[in-house]
């Protein structure tokens, strides 16, 4: 579906991050193209969260660079962040404000032309219009998730980073979420999904990478069958 010769929307070269003497990430390369999803797995403490934060521009790499839509992610150029969206365990929503107020603020942050309209439309798309004017603290977990998704997608990011998004989702919600991811891919977005459970998004992943000890233990096109891959995965993680 995607032309292999296309330039990647998200690229990282030689990404490394240390904290004093502690080296968390030791030289990671990746490239994700439009309409493609990279699934990143690996044991706890391997550096997955650090990797995601580096890709999101929330952390500065000790070495290496991140490129989003051909622009290098640096401190001095905030504009490069425009193409990035992040969905993590933090919702980034203010409890005392309503979803509508939250999203209007985000729309202003991203300089969207009609902040209030953009907010309203985004909330309608996730089916939250009926609670758009209740404080976020009153929302149930499921609705909160929808609000978080609306927030992450509000500015139509070309690159979407997801940190274990299936955690705590029941089967129907997970299915709905998979549909959402599929529609994002269909729109030509590039996705990076950090996951603990390979089964969650196996079909959607175009490429698979396993991070062990701050390095790729594996980085290749997603194998055909999960059952065949699992023994390999166990070996990589515990080897």
């Amino acid at each position, binding site marked *: 579906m995607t032309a292999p010769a296309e330039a990647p929307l998200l690229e990282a070269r030689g990404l490394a991050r240390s904290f004093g003497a502690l080296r968390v990430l030791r030289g990671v390369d990746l490239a994700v193209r439009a309409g493609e999803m990279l699934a990143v797995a690996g044991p706890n403490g391997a550096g997955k969260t650090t990797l995601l*934060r580096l890709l999101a521009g*929330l952390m500065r790499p000790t070495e290496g660079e991140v490129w989003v839509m051909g622009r290098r992610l640096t401190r001095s150029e*905030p504009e490069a*962040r425009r193409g990035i969206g992040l969905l993590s365990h*933090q919702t980034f929503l*203010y409890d005392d*404000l309503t979803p509508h*107020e939250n999203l209007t603020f985000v729309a202003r942050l991203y*300089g969207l032309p009609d902040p209030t309209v953009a907010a309203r439309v985004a909330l309608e798309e996730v089916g939250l219009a009926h609670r758009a004017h209740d404080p976020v603290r009153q929302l149930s977990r499921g609705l909160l998730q929808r609000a978080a998704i609306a927030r992450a997608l509000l500015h139509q990011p070309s690159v979407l980073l997801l940190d274990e998004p299936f955690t705590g989702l029941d089967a129907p919600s997970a299915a709905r979420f998979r549909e959402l991811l599929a529609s994002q891919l269909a729109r030509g977005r590039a996705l990076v999904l950090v996951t603990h459970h390979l089964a969650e998004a196996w079909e959607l992943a175009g490429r698979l990478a396993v991070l062990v000890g701050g390095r790729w233990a594996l980085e290749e096109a997603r194998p055909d069958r999960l059952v065949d891959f699992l023994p390999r995965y166990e070996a990589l993680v515990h080897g």
Partner: protein
Amino acid sequence: MGDGIRLALAVAAKDIRLELRSRTALLSAVVFAALVLVVFNFARDPTAISAMDLAPSVLWVTFAFGAVVALNRAFTVERENAALDGMLLAPLPRSALYLGKLLANLVFVFVVEAVTLPLFVLFFNVSLGHAWPGILGVTTLATIGFVSVGTIFSAMVVRTRFAELMLPVLLLPFMVPPLVGAVQCTARLLAGRPLSEMLGWLRLLTLYDIVFVTLCTLAFPAVVDE
């Protein structure tokens, strides 16, 4: 440049709306300031020290305490909602984030001062007379000074366990030049002294504001960016 200001205003508006919704910090700061004034009023011996001698110091100590209480909220709300990353993710220049927070904090502290000043006039039987525009000006200058430093420090201490204790420990040395300048100017204004006697202090206040607002704006990325 215009974008930066627009973004700063958006951040400030968000903070103000949040505070109006919950009202906790502002209320505590105002009540605290009023209590401090009452304590000062009862604690002094009216026959020994004239009110006018003590008045400027009392006023400014009260403002300072109230400001510290109000400043503690600046980043607590971000931590409570884990929302700071959400803002850092956006193409938001960190200077705009700082200025937005600074603006919101200035509004809060000005509110505390606006409530405290009339109470002060009431309790201490001080007559402001023609001095009030000057006092307003001095108050603005000094407040900008210590709120600018307080804003960046509150961003730091919010990651520590005893934030409410750490903020005064860090901030108080930095409050001294603006406070001393403010007290000296207020005393002279209340006594009806000519402007020429205050020029040195006014220059101190202005220079402090320029230096520290600039420095804090430049240093702010080091605090919020990893």
